[in-house]
Each structure stands twice: as C-alpha cells, then as structure tokens.
C-alpha cells in the first residue's frame, strides 16, 4: 500500500474504496498517507487531518452518513494516536513486530532500579524531574532513530518503549 505517494485527492478516493468494516483495521500511518517511522512532521499530520476531515465528516457526506461517521471516528482516533508519542511508537511497533507481542514487559537493563530510586525520592519530595526528562528524551531519540533504520532492533525497541510508560507516569506526577 503505497498510500504515502498519493496526492491528497487520490488518497481520499483510495479511502472511499475501503469498506466501513475495514476502516478500523487500517494502520494510522497509511490512513494519513504518512511514511512509517516515528520522526513525524506534526504540522503535516495536522494539515492532512484537517483536509481529510473536511472531506470525510458526516456533515459533508449527506448521502453516506454511516460510512462518513465511521471514517471520521477512525480519523479522529488515529490522529490522537499519532499525536501522542508513546501511542505512535506502539502503533509503529505493531507494524514491525515479528515475535515479541504487545504483552512483552521487559525493561532496559538497570532501568527498574533507577525508577525505584526515583519513586523513593519522589515520595520524599526531592525528585529531580530534569533527570527523568533527560532519560525520557534519550529513550525517545533512540526509538525515533531506530524506527528509521531498515532493520529495527526489536528487543531493544520494545524495552525502551516499555520504559517510556514509567517515565510518563513519573513526569505526570510533577503536575499534580
């Protein structure tokens, strides 16, 4: 499916050929005609999101309400998925994963010990959030770089991606 090369107009035609039941099986990269890696141009995504929605929205498809509603719902869902880095990485992993599955819970070496210390510090109220953010950025960069390579190191990718969730939880605590 070389959806990425279609012009927007053709892209919509291509979507129109997909039955309602299969719209939710479509991966989020193909849906927006984006190349499959994590280095996402968010402005491009937003542009395509709006262009597609303008054509797909039920208000613009009087004669095909049900299909338009499902397509718009899928576009909305995929947009939210792509805008969130961790969800985007999960979506990417589902595409390349050959044997690990999403239930794999392994962590990078030494990572759990680190999280354990951070959790303790956080309870004591002296956690350095910059340190957590630094680790997050390191993981994020690794995942982006890996996603561009022709052969992704699936094991390492899965572990760092698992680690992201812990880091996100820690960083969310800062807002509370």
């Amino acid at each position, binding site marked *: 499916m070389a959806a990425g090369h279609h012009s927007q107009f053709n892209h919509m035609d291509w979507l129109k050929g997909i039955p309602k039941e299969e719209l939710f099986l479509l991966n989020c990269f193909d849906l927006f005609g984006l190349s499959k890696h994590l280095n996402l141009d968010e402005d491009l995504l937003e542009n395509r999101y709006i262009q597609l929605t*303008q054509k797909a*929205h*039920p*208000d613009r498809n009087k004669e095909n309400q049900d299909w338009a509603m*499902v397509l718009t719902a*899928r576009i*909305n*869902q995929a947009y*939210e998925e792509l805008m969130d880095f961790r969800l985007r990485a999960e979506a990417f992993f589902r595409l390349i994963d050959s044997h690990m599955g999403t239930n794999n819970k392994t962590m990078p070496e030494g990572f759990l010990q680190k999280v354990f210390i951070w959790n303790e510090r956080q309870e004591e109220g002296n956690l350095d959030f910059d340190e957590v953010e630094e680790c997050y950025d390191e993981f994020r960069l690794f995942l982006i770089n890996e996603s561009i390579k022709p052969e992704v190191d699936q094991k390492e990718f899965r572990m760092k991606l698992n680690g992201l969730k812990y880091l996100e939880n820690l960083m969310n605590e800062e807002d509370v």
Partner: protein
Amino acid sequence: MKNKVIGIDLGTTHTLASYYEDGELKVFNPEDPLIPSVVSYPPDGEPLVGREAMEYAKKDPENTVFSVKRFMGKGDDSLDLQNHRFPFSLHPHQGLWQVRIRDRWVSPQEISAHILRHVVHRIKGEENETQAVITVPAYFNGAQRQATRDAGKIAGIKVIRIINEPTAAALAYGLHEIKSGTIAVYDLGGGTFDFSLLKVTNGVFRVLSTHGNTFLGGDDFDEALMADILEKKGLSLCHLNHKNLHNLRCMAKEIKEELSDQHKVEKMFQLEDVHIKAEYTRESFDRLIAPFIKRSLESCRRALKDAGKRKKDITQVILVGGSSRVPLVRTMLAEYFGKELFCSINPDVVVAMGAAMQASLIEDQVQDMLLMDVTPLSIGLETVGGGVTKIIMRNAPIPAQASEKFTTYVDNQTAIDFHILQGERELVEDNISLAKFKLRHIPPMAAGMAVVNVDFRIDADGILTVQAKEERSGQEAAVEVVPSHGLSMEHVRTIITESILHAREDFDHVRLIAARTDAQTLMMATKKTLAQNPHLAGDEIEMIHSYVKDLEDSCQGKDIAAIEEGLDKLNRETTILAEKMVSNAVLDMVKGKTLEEISKQDGS
C-alpha cells in the same frame, strides 16, 4: 421564513432563536429577542411562556417554573438542591426531578418543550414542521443532551443537531473576525459557565478542550446581592416567602445591571411594612462576586491544561453570555489572558446566531466552514468491584468510536449486564450513570469462552450509542441503551401521544418478545445438555422435561408473568443440573481411588 432551519439557544434564563438568510445571520424579533425561559401553569387553559409567565408569577409563583435547565436530565441522586430555593415544588419522581403542578407531575423535558414550542410558533406559526439546531452547555453530559433532544421531540421539532454553546459563539463570529489560531470562548450565562478552547485552521473549527460548571453564573451574583441586602438587616434568604423572594431577586438583577454602566446604585426594597435601603458601589458589588469569577478562572486553567496549551498560545478571547457584561468579569479576564476581549456581537444573542450558522452549515448553505466538536466527559463501563474502565476519553474529537472485549464470568452464563458511566472519577458511585443494559441470549458455554465485543459510538451530536455482540457464536444480539436519567423512549412517546394506554401496550409487547426469546434460548440449551449427559438420575430429567413443557406452553400465550415465572423455575433447576454435572465429572475422576490418593491429588 418557511423552510429554514432555525438555531435555538435554550438558555437557563432566556431562550431565543436565529436563522441564516441572504448570507447573513438574523435574530428573530431583534428589538426584543430574549424570551424569558419561564413557564406558568394557570389552573385552566394553556401554559404561559416568557413575559406573560413572568407576569403571572407575581400572583402565583408556586405554579411558575424557571431555571428548568438546571435540572434537565438530572436523576434523583445527582442534584443537590440544598442551596437552590425554588418557589415551585420540585421533587424526585420516577427517578427524575419533576415539578408538581397542582395534581400532576411535569418533567423538565415537557417544561422545556413548552418554551421551544412557544419560540417556534412565534416564528413559524402553528402549521409548519420545524427543523432546528439547539445549543447546550459544553459541560452537559449525555443524559442532559438526550433530555434536550427529547424536549425538542415533544415540542414537535426535528432536532438536526445539538451543539455546544461556546462553539456556537465562535461560529457566529465567522471567518471575517476569527483568524486561524487558538480561540478561547468564555461563556458566563445566568446559570451555567463554560470555557472552551478552539483551534481554527482554514475554516475548520476544532474544539480542543472544554471545561465548565453547571452551577455557576449570573444567578449566583444575584443571590450574593440578595443575601447581602438582607444580612445588613440581620435577615437571611430563608426568612422570605416566595413572593418577597421574587421581588428581591428582581431588584438584585436591576442593581447588577445598572452597576455595569453606573458607579453607584441605590434602591429601596419593601419587605412587608419594612423598607430596606440597598446601596451599592461598583467596588462593594465586586467584592461580593469576585469569588465566583475566580472559580470560573479555575475552569479556564484546567481547559488549558487538557489542551496542552498555555495562556500565551491564545490568540483571541470571545465573550459570551449576559453575565460577561459585568465589568469585573472583563477586568479579571483581560488580566488573566493579557489579551483584548472580543464582544462585538451582543453576548446574549451570539449563541443563537452560532446555532443558526451551524444549521446553515449542515444544510449546505455555507460551505467554507466545518465544526468539529469534542466529547466533554470520559465514557466508560463499570468493572467488577465498582471500578470504571474508560473507553472514550474526555475531550476526544467526535464522532468517536471505540470498542472493548468482555467475556462471561460463570459457566453457562447467558446474559451480561453493562453499566455505562460518564465522568472522570475512578469509582462508579462518583460518576454519572448514563445507562444500563443487558446483553441476552449468549449461548451457554464455559466461563471465559464467550467473546463479547462492545462498541461505543458517539455521533456528531455527542450522543452515545452502545452495541454488544457475542462473537464466538457468531450470534449478534442488539441492545438498546435507555438513558437512566432521561425519559425512556416509551415515556417520550407517551407524552407526545398523550396516550398512556398505547405506550403500556408497546412496552408489554417488547417485554413479551424478550421473555419468549429468553425462554427459547434456555430451552434449546437445556435440551442439548440433557441429550449429551447420561449421568443424571431419571427423576431429575423428568422434572426438567416437565418444566420445559410448561414453559413451552406459556410461550404460546401472552401472559408475560407466566413466561417469566416458568423461565425462572427452569433456570433454577438447570443451575442445580449444572452443579450436578460438575460433581458427576468429579466422581468420575475419583472413582476407585482412596481418600488418601484424592487428597494427594488435590494438594498437587
């Protein structure tokens, strides 16, 4: 004005209508567009609406209803009326807050329908079928939206869309004034407050987040003033009768409004034979109302956080709602956002105009704009132990669709109960109960074998439908969601036709079909099980066969109670049968073994 779709702002204090004509938004009756959202029920004759009702209220406040929007779609457990003294008699009745007018109950939907009908008749006369877009506060939950829709239906209006008030306001400004960027809409009405963030890109209006408070508005300013006036004389609001309260409320409103362009206001209030002087400067009034405005700013902060935006990202701030005229509101907002405020369209009519704009967008009269809304509250399901699983998150763009898989909990379970909730809290009891439904006719199988896919869909109106399907058997079972705090479909139909008899028949018919289908499923499963299991004693089989026969017989008739009773009996007996089958299987396993061997087996 015959076939146009109209936009209606069904407000807590005022209602008004607008329409789109010749490329322009027009308000109906522009000299005096605001119809008070007040309905009176004189002992004989038709209900009175608007000014007439206000007039009537002076002599009969007990049979005059106002602020009906405050209890639209509210279940008896979800409304705290402690702080709201209504002169009319408001009570929980059949799971809803309803008004007692002499010897009958009137639902909020019916009262709202009277208002809507009045508005539509003024515009279109009695003949024409009307289509309308009606606005609701962004913070309204599914039950409240459904209640609004039902009100339209009862009034004989075809409601083509329910949209959020703040979004409507931004649409009314249109593309002439709204530039691409992030827009904040601050809507402080009489009774409700809403704050929304919108992103506008090439004519697409996209709601990013929304937050609000269904109990915050100009009415609070009035009440604060009323309490303050009385307090100076050592009195409180509870000392006043309805008539005095009404008069004091009117005076407080006058003081508030006059203080918007005067610095000092003086009024006399006559309480029976005592005269009370009320003297307020803008400063003394500001002190009374500042806490309420601070609460509104808290909602702004949360909406910003939800959208991942900062105050500096906001490009324009739009003011909506009559209470946004209060000078302190404008001062505090300008200070908070550090931006110029948009208020060139009368904040009282801007929402109705936006509704008319949306109506014309749907009707294809204007093609360069599109509105994309979000759902204001998360939607989820009750899980074992009183927890909640969120299926669609708050502020998700709509239409939205999501699904979740469930399975059975015990062997041969033929039904699963689903409880749909709306809200952000972790526990069921802290959320709004939207609906409950049962998926029946699951073929009997071992626990955990059934695969039930539950599909959640929120349409462009923000209204939710849920469907469940058992996938393993390929058998599809459709379910209907009845909002637990709205009127049921039967109820709405009852009001429309005003024929309780027919609705009763319909309801019974549905029940009869459901009971018969349940019976068929159970009988088939039972027969199959009996055929496959030779372990059972002859008298047990005979007993079950006789129950099946009884049930078959009652299914021929129309006596629902008889079918349900037979179903119950057979269900009880087959449960015992299932237990026996399990113990027989255990017997097989342990046959010829000593007690010691068995306990060893258990321990391993």
